[in-house]
């Protein structure tokens, strides 16, 4: 049984309310930070902990905080990114729904370190009921004196506002999120300037994921060094993984970074193994990370067991690895069609592209049309090369990472499952049945086994 830092008390009665939360040690980190620590000391603890951004990119949080510009007389902001829209990811929803005060506590402590007197939670439109839970919790916290003027007599003022987005995937990109928060069209900004220098309303801003901010609470309670003891190498602490797809026990799990992929997939504590059939492929970190075949999920190309860490999952680069991403883990059994799944992913990115810069605006739609043709038995061999070329020309040439996110699933699907694409061209009649691999699983040719 691994250690749980965030979800330790998630099943306790009354944990959603302030009283229940307090009986399980809630708001200790605020007391500790505001009464006994300086903002710099809090920042140092976060740096020591080695905490990395849990939204997907995995950027060291302490470093991000230290980049925050601190000009005189200009307010600073903390913005929590609760626009959890990555397909396959639903960990933040669970956290906010179950233990809203954990996020609020983390926000107060983090804002104290950053010197921010106002912070915002930008939550996706589909989570309107979660926004209500958060607002109720904020109201409770405010009434109890955890928010407002002069918290705990420390002279630190803080307030939190919840802003509900309108449900655009792109608004999860930090600069698009800030634009949307300012009431504008959610188009990503061109960086530099980075939000740490010019963010919300032109002021220095830190944008962090819900889970990142929540993780600040155990870091301050137990100390950064204690947190850093969990995990392997630069992947420290625990991570929420939202597991789905063809597994026996889908759900949100808190894992210690560093358990093996095999354990995560097959242990009864976590996914409980593949749903009845053979494992075909895994997307370990949300729809934008590369899809990897089962053998590469369990073992790296060097034959080492793959671990659930930022480094190990990325081992081998894009040729044979993937990314931990946001922790939106989903597995495919051998009844699933990779071409169909890739088409579905691309359809999503086409729909969600903001239309600001040309490669993503035009390229995603083009890829979707080609993939649609392939999946429905009307494709040609050249289409595979065409797809490869389109994704190559999108990747790296766009303003924000949505272009890359749209390109990577296509690239990895072709890289590892090219023979399945070829099968779709060669057997148009068979693939016209939407469940074409349900009765007779597709057998990968051995030449693609290790790509």
């Amino acid at each position: 049984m691994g250690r749980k830092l965030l979800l330790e008390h998630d099943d306790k009665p009354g944990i959603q309310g302030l009283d229940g939360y307090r009986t399980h040690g809630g708001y200790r980190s605020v007391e500790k930070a505001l009464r006994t620590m300086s903002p710099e000391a809090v920042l140092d603890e976060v740096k020591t902990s080695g905490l990395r951004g849990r939204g997907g990119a995995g950027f060291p949080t302490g470093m991000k905080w230290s980049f925050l510009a601190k000009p005189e007389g200009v307010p600073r902001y903390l913005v929590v990114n609760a626009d959890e829209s990555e397909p396959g990811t639903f960990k933040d929803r669970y956290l906010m729904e179950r233990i809203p005060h954990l996020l609020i506590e983390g926000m107060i402590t983090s804002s104290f370190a950053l010197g921010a007197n106002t912070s915002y939670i930008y939550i996706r439109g589909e989570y309107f009921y979660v926004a209500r839970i958060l607002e109720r919790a904020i109201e409770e916290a405010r009434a109890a004196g955890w928010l407002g003027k002069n918290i705990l007599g420390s002279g630190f003022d803080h307030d939190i506002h919840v802003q509900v987005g309108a449900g655009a995937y792109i608004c999860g990109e930090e600069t698009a999120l800030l634009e949307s928060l300012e009431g504008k069209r959610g188009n990503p900004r061109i960086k530099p300037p980075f939000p740490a220098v010019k963010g919300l309303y032109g002021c220095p801003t830190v944008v962090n994921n819900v889970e990142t901010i929540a993780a600040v609470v155990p870091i301050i309670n137990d100390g950064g060094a204690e947190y850093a003891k969990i995990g392997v190498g630069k992947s420290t602490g625990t991570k929420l993984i939202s597991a789905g797809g063809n597994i026996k026990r889908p759900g949100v799990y808190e894992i210690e970074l560093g358990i093996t992929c095999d354990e995560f997939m097959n242990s009864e504590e976590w996914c409980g193994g593949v749903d009845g059939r053979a494992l075909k492929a895994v997307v370990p970190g949300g729809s934008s990370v590369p899809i990897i075949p089962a053998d590469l999920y369990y073992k790296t190309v060097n034959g080492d067991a793959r671990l659930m860490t930022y480094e190990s999952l990325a081992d081998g680069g894009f040729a044979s690895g993937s990314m931990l991403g946001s922790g939106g883990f989903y597995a495919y059994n051998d009844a699933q069609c990779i071409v169909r799944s890739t088409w579905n992913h691309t359809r999503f990115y086409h729909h969600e592209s903001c239309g600001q810069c040309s490669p993503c605006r035009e390229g995603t739609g083009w890829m979707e049309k080609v993939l649609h043709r392939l999946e429905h038995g009307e494709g040609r061999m050249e289409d595979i090369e065409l797809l490869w070329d389109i994704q190559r020309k999108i990747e790296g040439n766009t303003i924000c990472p949505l272009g890359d996110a749209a390109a990577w699933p296509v690239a990895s699907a072709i890289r590892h499952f090219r023979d399945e694409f070829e099968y779709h061209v060669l057997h148009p009649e068979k693939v016209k049945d939407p469940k074409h691999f349900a009765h007779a699983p597709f057998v990968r040719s051995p030449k693609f086994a290790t790509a």
Partner: protein
Amino acid sequence: MPKVTIDGIAIDVPEGTTILQAARMIGERNTADRHVVPPAMCYYTKLKTSGGYCRTCIVKVSKASEKDPRPMPKPVASCRTAVMDGMVVENTTSPELLEARKGVVEFLLINHPLDCPICDQAGECHLQDLSYENGAVTSRYEFERRTFDPIDIGETIKLHMTRCILCYRCVKVAEQITDGRVHGVINRGDVSEISTYISNAIENDFSGNMIDVCPVGALTDRTFRFASRVWFTNPVDAHRDCDKCSGKTVLWLKGKEVLRVTGRKDQWGEVEDFICNTCRFDKKDLKHWSVEGPRKIDRHSVIGQGHYLLQRKQQLLNSPAPNVPEIAKRKELKDR
């Protein structure tokens, strides 16, 4: 002053200059070096926060600065990236960059109708130039193109959304030089469109500048539509006393008839001064204007076709052609 090297040509530029501006300075210093200037479809010097969207001006930075000599991992938009001292930029010398740009041009063209034969912008269209210089001969796109119905946005401007490449220039014009923007980009992704909300007319004294900044034929002058191809008209510099703008314009004449009035565009296709709608739409008679003389047209432009032959010959003799030296040499021999 930071020193930047673009395609092997070094220049000292003021602090805060963008790579694109530095390249243009090189081009202005010596016309023979104009090939280092990246094409730009959405950037407009006179419009703040423009640029960064079309991605045609991407360049490869092989050395970020003297202090940090690492290359930048991805191509950067030269119009929005400031130079650092010691920066080394590759534009036309990097085959992979040219390949990436070719990709961008292809993306811009897949939903463009390519209706140049019936488009008023033909001959002065930046997308035409771009695809001619950087694009492929054929398209690999086989699906139905995105289409919209042309609409009149106000008395004087026609919007062909089908041709639009979403450069946002007209939005910035409305925001920065007119009082009150009534149009913008609505919807998302490849169905996003420039539009007024809802069916509003754009009525203000400077709205006509949207036509000048539009790099394609999406916004055209309704008072000039289908009157003539631009290369059959005779552009002359002219001015008048105007209480709203500088009054410095170009008149596009056919005989003594003023077919249209536009701002004066420099060698990068950007107007020198924004002009008002009175000058642009209401003064279509030579008697309102003091004509200064023929407009200098770049010898590569189709607009110069048949005009000012003497001047062009002189130019040919004086300067080696910037873009394609071999062709210039051939032409020079022929002219002799």
